[in-house]
């Protein structure tokens, strides 16, 4: 089945099998490997991308369902060559270690800040509770998202 999907602002047309998972489409067909796979049961969230601005687990969607939609992956966070505030904040606050969950965490964080420019610690923890991290204990991920929120509001950069 032929589908048209916009990924990070670039339109793509592809012929895919209906059973192809959206995450495999992004990784294999489009070739953007910043979106990862970590489980079989919709539990870990490392495959999260923004679908029309909303974070979703792409291991639990078929590529055909993204027909006509616009996706933002980690590769699309940068704007005009500048890091997104969430990217700068993750580095500044040491919000990552192995980096495997990081793209998803940043996308969820960026969507949260869009909706809630000044999230409390509890709100951040709740918002990222569909995403697992094995390295950081979440402490610095929470800090990074709050720092990004602060820097987005003030227009400052994290560094």
């Amino acid at each position, binding site marked *: 089945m032929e589908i048209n999907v916009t990924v990070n602002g670039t339109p793509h047309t592809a012929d895919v*099998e209906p059973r192809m998972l959206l995450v495999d489409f992004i990784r294999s067909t489009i070739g953007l490997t910043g979106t990862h*796979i970590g489980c079989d049961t919709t539990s870990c969230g490392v495959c999260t991308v923004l679908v029309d601005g909303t974070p979703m687990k792409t291991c639990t969607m078929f590529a055909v369902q993204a027909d006509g939609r616009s996706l933002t992956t980690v590769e699309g966070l940068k704007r005009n060559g500048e890091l997104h505030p969430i*990217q700068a904040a993750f580095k500044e606050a040491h919000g990552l*270690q*192995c980096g*495997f969950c990081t793209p998803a965490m940043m996308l969820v964080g960026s969507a949260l800040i869009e909706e809630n420019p000044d999230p409390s610690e509890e709100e951040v923890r709740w918002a990222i*509770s569909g995403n*697992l991290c094995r390295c950081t*204990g*979440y402490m610095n991920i929470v800090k990074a998202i709050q720092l990004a929120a602060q820097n987005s509001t003030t227009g400052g950069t994290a560094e």
Partner: protein
Amino acid sequence: MTTTEHAPKTSPEVCGVGHSRRRVEDDRFIQGGGNYLDDIELSGMLHMAIVRSPLAHAEILSIDTSQAEAVDGVVAVVTGDLLAQYDLAWMPTLSGDTQAVLATDKVRFQGQEVAAVIATDPYVARDAAELVFVDYEPLPPIVNPQQGLAPDAPIIRTDKEGKTDNIAYTWESGDAQATEAAFARAARVVTLETHYPRSHPSPLETCGVIADVDPITSQATIYMTSQAPHAHRTVFALVAGLPEQNIRIISPDIGGGFGNKVPVYPGYVIATAASLVIGKPVKWIETRTGNLSSTGFARDYHMKGELALDADGRILGLRVDMTSDQGAFYADAQPTKFRAGLFHIVTGSYDYPAAHVSATGVYTNKAPGGVSYRCSFRVTEASYLIERLVQNAAYEIGMDPAEFRMLNFIRPDQFPYRSPTGFVYDSGDYETALRLAMDMVGYEDLRREQEEARREGRLMGIGIASFTEVVGAGPSKDYDILGLKMFDSAELRIHPTGKGILKLGVKTQGQGHETTFAQIVAEELGIPAADIKVVEGDTDNTPYGLGTYGSRSTPTAGAATSVVSRKLREKARKIAAHLLEASEEDLEWEVGKFFVRGSPESSVTIQDCVFAAYTNFPEGMEGGFEDVDYYDPPNMTFPFGSYIVVVDLDPDTGVWKVRRMIAVDDCGVRINPMIVEGQIHGGLTEGFAMSSMQWITYDEDGNCIGSNFMDYLIPTAWETPRFELGETVTPSPHHPIGAKGVGESATVGSPAAYVNAVIDALAHLGVRNIDMPLLPDRVWETIRSHSGAEGEG
């Protein structure tokens, strides 16, 4: 909060030891530029899916691959019989046992590898895997070591000729006679029997491999999720009989390891064999179910510990009997000499003359493993047992658990301290760490609050763990894996312009080696850390080393980095003398430059010296500026700390919540405090996970419960407590920069603190043990079985 201020010796520009340098690897990770195994695509690459046993114990009567082979896109179906033709049906484990690559005679655990399908597409490989039909004759499964030791138990390892029982190993440590004597004169003996349940490191990236054997040159390039690429190259050479120079292991970015990526797994071997035969690259990416149900588990120790106390509450001796559940193959990744890892560190932070540990490993119909899950070879189990025991001992003698520890701690003036099981602790100051933790948490106030709460019928508890770890394996006289001595290495080359490359035998998996190891060079040579590129994980381009696990990178490769930098500093000194026309003895070193004693204006920078090493070196000197060091540590390092957890417990539901978690760590000198704290946060979370929810169990038929993230529970940000960190610094006297390693301290130390807190909330009811994980139902059942009982606490 810290007890001591550590002003770094170097400027922020140089960024040596002590700076919270932001991580250089982050630039790629935050932009989706990480290069993990599954991100690698090779031309003509095939995909492999593994067929696994649904049964825990069964004879294989036949395997029918014909339907699978007929599927469009399937290139080959591999079985154990096929591998046997290449002598690859079995492989050695890291503990010197053997393990089936693909089962030929019988399956020995649910999830065991039985066949593999190689196809042009991963979806097709999975389709065809369903069409491999295996005819099994079920055998009675053994699902715990007690069953395995029963006299009439079926023998699991029928492959081992003459094997008449299910014992994988027996081992002991310490002095049995002296321990008996200590118990004979004890005023009181405190006993704890507890199970440290089976767990799994389950990094978010599963294991995987791309084997690319060139049919013309026979060059095997094996991309692998490996924490120990050099050791794996040697194992591959031994197992597959490939000439070692033709094997190149590349371990790309790793999405977490935690010990899971230390062993060699059947999937790696099958893919390599398939690539060798087919002549095309073969990729295998493990499913999460495969990861949890077949690759290296951790823990699963059934422990009985006894403490002998004198009338004043001083510990006289410790006796431990431990039975480990090894699964179907004895595959602990651990030093050869120690059959139960470094479990004999179980004497802990306390001073007493006698201890004895006996251990029995038992085969069961469960997945093999026994990996060091964020732990230096079974230290986690040991630390848990002793910290639970001392807490219970305090209750039994009516002493505050903190006071009991203070009374029995090894004192600072006793270091180096020889433990009753033979370790020589390098340095420590346990009382200071505990005092700091108590101050941070407000210990006395909490104890008063607890008394009040009990009067009101509320339940709250305060749990302490004052752990001592042993890490940094290890000195070559005692430590090897499969005969390979556990040294590690660093190769440093500074280019003419003063910027260079550091190559290491270890392999980062999130610990930030690219950042921190450059800081060690910066510290030693004064060359800015930003000018040093760190390379790991490619066996063709890095010096030999045993890899990253057991908190060994800083104690071994970190030391090697320091030493190789110092070697080069001595070369620079000779060049400086030449450039300054002074004698070497008259030169003084300060960060980044040499100057003539008494005339500081007469100086050359390290960069000047490096440039001269290529352009203007003294006659008779070798040109260039590079060296290598293979570092054989003189001793292990012994990080320690004190953790205090405060919990509130709902007696109606058994639900407990962490109110405070204080962690005071002493890992010696901190190379990068930001990264150290991040490591501690992660470890405290894994400790919380194990104490509260994360475990793998098996039903009576040997079905694995915990083979996916719906059943194997990993806490999210919502459940995970907030952590408050403190620090003391007691440098390691034998490490070149005084560092000890920290990647695992918090996983090792914290489970006992969480559990002790819950037990403490219930101690007045007489509760002394709940086996982990402390799920609400277990806590509630415990309260119910103790309600009405007179407590002693």
